């Protein structure tokens, strides 16, 4: 449904998006996972037609976005990162406006609005002004505005940022319901667990580039023959490098004062051998952690940083 080819967006010398290409199939929930500043929102802005790419092309159902933007945008729903709502209007008035803007009218509009309210559990507060809503309720309405016109594909840019766990669970449930109905979703997040539990396929993005792409299992397999060891203690980087460099099948993938991350090739036995080497290195250690294969270890392996860094 979506095909993105060599997308580039520059801000001066900074390449916020640096040659991204991917494809999203119909009915798929495709995740863009990466830390803040990775280029996720810029990519979404280009997909929603808000930003023109400096290079590259975006196709929706085989039609280039720039060729017929209004018609394509009418088939998309957008859930922005910020809660873009009219605070003095009620939830229903907000939904009616957006539904009307996408061409709905009369009974169709009424039905769509009530369905969207029900979808995000806001029917009981439909008449209340948005300014009286909690942060979680605003997030839910923000999601509903992107769904009210029944789009074929929805672009969701970190829709759960800054809300409590319960509100987050409600939103994730609504997102699952959307994909279950056959709607295509592109979902950006920096939460590993969201990507792991929600997405059919995930692209790991950093510094404007896609580092890896696949299903969660496929991505995890990339590190299944590697063990990630995180060593912390009172040591400086050079001292640690000097003492650990000689460990067999071990590569230092990240180092900072008091913390060093090692990638050990092989099975669990190789990790134990590496651990023995670390313990025997004479470094003043506080702790050593071996991470099971996860999206975080994939990200660590690819970037040398944890996603939460």
């Amino acid at each position, binding site marked *: 449904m979506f095909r993105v080819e060599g997308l580039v967006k520059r801000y001066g010398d900074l390449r916020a998006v640096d040659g991204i290409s991917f494809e999203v199939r119909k009915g798929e929930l495709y995740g863009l996972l990466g830390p803040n500043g990775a280029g996720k929102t810029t990519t979404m802005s280009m997909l*929603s*037609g808000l930003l023109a790419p400096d290079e590259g092309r975006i196709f929706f159902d085989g039609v280039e976005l720039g060729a017929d933007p209004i018609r394509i*945008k*009418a088939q998309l729903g*957008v859930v922005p990162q910020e809660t*873009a709502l009219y605070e003095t209007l009620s939830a229903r008035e907000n939904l009616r*406006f*957006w539904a*009307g803007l*996408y061409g709905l009218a009369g009974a169709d509009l009424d039905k769509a609005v009530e369905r969207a309210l029900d979808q995000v559990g806001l029917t009981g507060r439909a008449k209340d002004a948005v300014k009286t809503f909690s942060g979680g309720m605003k997030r839910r309405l923000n999601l509903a505005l992107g769904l009210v016109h029944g789009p074929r594909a929805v672009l969701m840019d970190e829709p759960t940022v800054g809300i409590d766990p319960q509100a987050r669970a409600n939103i994730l449930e609504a997102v699952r319901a959307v994909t279950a109905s056959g709607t295509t979703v592109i979902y950006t997040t920096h939460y590993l667990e969201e990507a792991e539990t929600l997405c059919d396929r995930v692209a790991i993005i950093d510094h404007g580039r896609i580092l890896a792409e696949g299903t969660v299992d496929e991505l995890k397999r990339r590190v299944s023959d590697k063990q990630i060891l995180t060593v912390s203690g009172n040591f400086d980087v050079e001292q640690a490098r000097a003492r650990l460099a000689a460990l067999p099948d071990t590569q230092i993938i990240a180092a900072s004062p008091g913390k060093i991350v090692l990638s050990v090739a092989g099975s669990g036995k190789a990790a134990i051998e590496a651990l023995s080497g670390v313990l025997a290195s004479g470094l003043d250690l506080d702790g050593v952690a071996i991470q099971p294969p996860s999206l975080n270890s994939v990200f660590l392996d690819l970037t040398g940083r944890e996603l939460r860094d």
Partner: protein
Amino acid sequence: MRTLLLLVAKDLKRKVRSPLGLLIVLSFPVVFALLIALSFGSRGERVPKIHLLVENQDGGLAANALLSALTSDQVAKYVEMEVVGSEGARRIENNEASALLRIPKRFTQDLFDGKPATLSLLRNPAQGILPEVAEQLTRVLVDVLDAGARVLRKPLEEIRSSAQPNAGRVTDETVIAVSLAVNHSVEGARKLVFPPAITVDTASLAPKPADQKSGESVSLIFLIILPGVSVYALFLVGDQAMRDIITEAKAGTLRRQLAGPIGAGTLVLGKALYTAVLALLALLVLSVVGAVVLRRGVDLAGFLLLSFALVLAVTGISATIYGLAKDERRGATIGSIVYLVLGFAGGSFVNLEGLPRAVRAVSPASPFYWGTAGYRKLIESAGTAGDILPNAAVLAGLGAVLLVLGALLLHRTVRRGGLA
């Protein structure tokens, strides 16, 4: 068209839900009018004192009688009289008084001789309505003196002949005869002369429904203030409405709309239409206030023509300001400065006559000037659509040009993501 209506309806609904800003702007001329109504209330008890300079070049009986009249308790409530020498004109230039009344040489003599006598009044236009009141007061005094001179013609002649150097001694009988003649003349003219003819409140500021002249005085006060301040308020309403495009950009709703099936041009057009509709509604409110306060009918065609032209100008200027501004703060700052300068130069706050000559010379460059002058023409001079056609043409032309310019600037900014 449907999208435009949706956008305007949404913005109007938001304005209705959060009307404080609009009410504050609209209350500006209303509060002004109310303050004036309170100050110059229905009885005129609180008319500010007129500082009247009198240059008495005559010094005779009639001149002194005039000075006495001006210092009488009744007149002193409204007039602070000061006798001055030849420096009077300079003091008017220095804005130290409302008017200078000059009593010429031979004034008394001419009055006794039955010759025409002229009092001259030099008005200070910088003091708004006060010189107008002073002029009316002078006219009343002149009428009284004129009537007195005519009524007392016979006794005055007897007094004059008695005062001749060769007339000999004035006997008791002569005095009694003159007194009787005066008494007879005054009795005969009592209905004309009394109650006291110099009644400033009646002749100037006190509005009486049946008294066209006093009504005019009150109307003059409002005429000077209300149209200018209302035009200024209208531009502020336009500024507020157009600024909403930046408010929406900050709230993220502009970006969200642009991600939908709506072009940047439609969005800008929608905001311009909303600005125009809001300005029209504000104009309606201000018109009702004006009608209540001024109590005058105006030529409807002329009023509508001027109002639509003004709304176009309001929309065009505000669109240009926010097309040039990159954010809300800069837009508000530029707007405040532009409106203040144009409002001042255009006579929104001070009557044009009271502005320095250099400012008056550039007044026609301000749309406020054309708006204010147009409404004054319609209200004060009972002007018609034909009379205000130049005003409407200038406003509409300026508005159309600036609207196109502003829309292009805003469109460019929105498309480039400058606001979104």
